[in-house]
């Protein structure tokens, strides 16, 4: 791990006490943040050279009680060439995270996409509406409870195929 990565890790862990860190087997830096600390943390990172927001996306883990949803941020420091990943676990009862649109203009559509597919509410977003799906859709299709195929079908045995 580079010296810079170490400094960033130490200061993030020190400044944001609810944070935990994991260096995964692929050499990527993962930080697990809490809902209320993610915005100041990304602001702190932005002021430390992480000026490129690579991606915001979500995942759904219905089996993990109290952490059914996860928002994943990839953020890149271009001058030190370090990319880190921040994750926020959300309970399905409270799917709110602060919006990053005030820090990065590009966060706008990334957050709209995550809202569209997972129903995660980004607080402070200027226009949190559906983006890829039709406006009158009343569910969030990337949730695991929505199977890809019609579940009422009886003519096909899926035991050996698909998830």
């Amino acid at each position, binding site marked *: 791990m580079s010296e810079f990565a170490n400094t960033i890790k130490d200061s993030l862990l020190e400044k944001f006490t609810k944070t935990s860190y994991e260096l*995964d*087997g*692929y050499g*990527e830096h993962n930080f697990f943040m809490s809902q209320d600390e993610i915005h100041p943390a990304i602001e702190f990172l932005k002021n430390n050279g992480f*000026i*490129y*927001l*690579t*991606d915001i*996306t979500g*995942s*759904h883990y219905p089996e993990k009680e109290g952490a059914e949803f996860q928002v*994943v941020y*990839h953020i890149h420091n*271009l001058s030190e*060439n370090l*990319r880190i*990943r921040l994750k926020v676990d959300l309970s399905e009862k409270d799917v709110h995270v602060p919006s990053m649109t*005030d820090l*990065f*203009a*590009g966060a*706008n*559509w*990334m957050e709209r*996409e995550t809202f569209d*597919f997972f129903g995660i509410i980004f607080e402070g977003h*200027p226009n949190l509406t559906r*983006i*890829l*799906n*039709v406006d009158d859709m009343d569910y969030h*299709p*990337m949730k695991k409870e929505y199977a*890809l*195929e019609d579940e009422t079908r009886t003519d096909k045995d899926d035991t*050996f195929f*698909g*998830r």
Partner: protein
Amino acid sequence: MSELELQNKKVAALASTETIDGEIATLNLGPTHPATHGIFQNILQVDGERILSAEQTVGYIHRAFEKLAERRPYNQITPITDRLNYCSSPINNMGWHMTVEKLIGAEMPKRVDYMRVIVMELARIADHLVCNSVIGVDTGALTGFTYMFQEREKIYDIYEEICGARLTTNVGRIGGFDRDFNKEFITKLRAFLKEFPKKFDEFGALLERNRIFMDRTIGAGPITAERALSYSFAGPNLRAAGVDYDVRVMKPYSSYQDFDFTIPVGNDGDTYDRFMVRQQEIRESLKIITQALENMPEGDYHADIPSFYLPPKEEVYSSMEALIYHFKIVMGETPIPAGEVYHSVEGGNGELGYYLVSDGGRTPYRLHFRRPCFIYYQAYPEMITGSLLSDAILTMSSMNVIAGELDA
């Protein structure tokens, strides 16, 4: 002052100072407008020819790739990636293969890396050719387009020699290629490398220093480096704004560190700079292909990972082991480690990322595509506000927004 307020103020200022007749009209540009290449809708408020605001609608060809991917075994996801940026499918295919290889920890032989580099750079040339010749078309210069599309056909002929397909290539496999480059491939590639630069220079001579073209494109749809970074621009569009971010250099994959090439950057981030950056990148890609072809290492065209790479077909019919592997791979029964990877490649439009979560099952648990088009297209209203309608069309084609990648 917030972004929105600033925008509103700008609009108000424009409406008051540059009024032509003071009457604001609503113009629905799209979804299928002959001047936009692809399905995009923009509802514009225009005062005469000048654009006051734009509201975008995307998602017209959304095909739920991320959802589809959750039900498909890993090797069946390659054809999905074809349909992201369909102007440079091989880059998408190989980006996906490399993501899975990263997940399973497979090491590729040098030869595979070099072969991939050749195909990916050909794809980059094809992608940039489409974009640049279409900029020509939108400025009224149809000639270059007709000639450059002939050259693109030759690239497709080269693809055909390695995978049999032209547009949606589905080239290669997890673990390398399904076959080695054949003689015909090498002949066609060498002929292309010999003849293309001349024709390309002719195309360049038509437009690069053409006074009419320059007057038309300089200053059209500009963006500053700061705004481009804030919008997470990538690829030629970001480099045209003056930021030298290229995944091939920053996070080298597929042995890109072995090649000698430069990253062209622009100054103003306008249509002309985007055009010029792409022109220069085509020349750099040619350099990379030549180097890869000259220094092609000996070795196998695939990695030695029997549980992921299909055995030769004739062995499947005669050997039990091969048959078992064949069956397991086709049915998606090979064990895959649980884990998360993010891998990105420099696609035709910039950083194309794959965020893959595996729980050890036969299909990805979650797969997210970081599509550069989708991310930078949101800057479009900001780039065209205050400009003329004809510049807006030009800005869109110079940003190379590909509907397939935009909507996934």
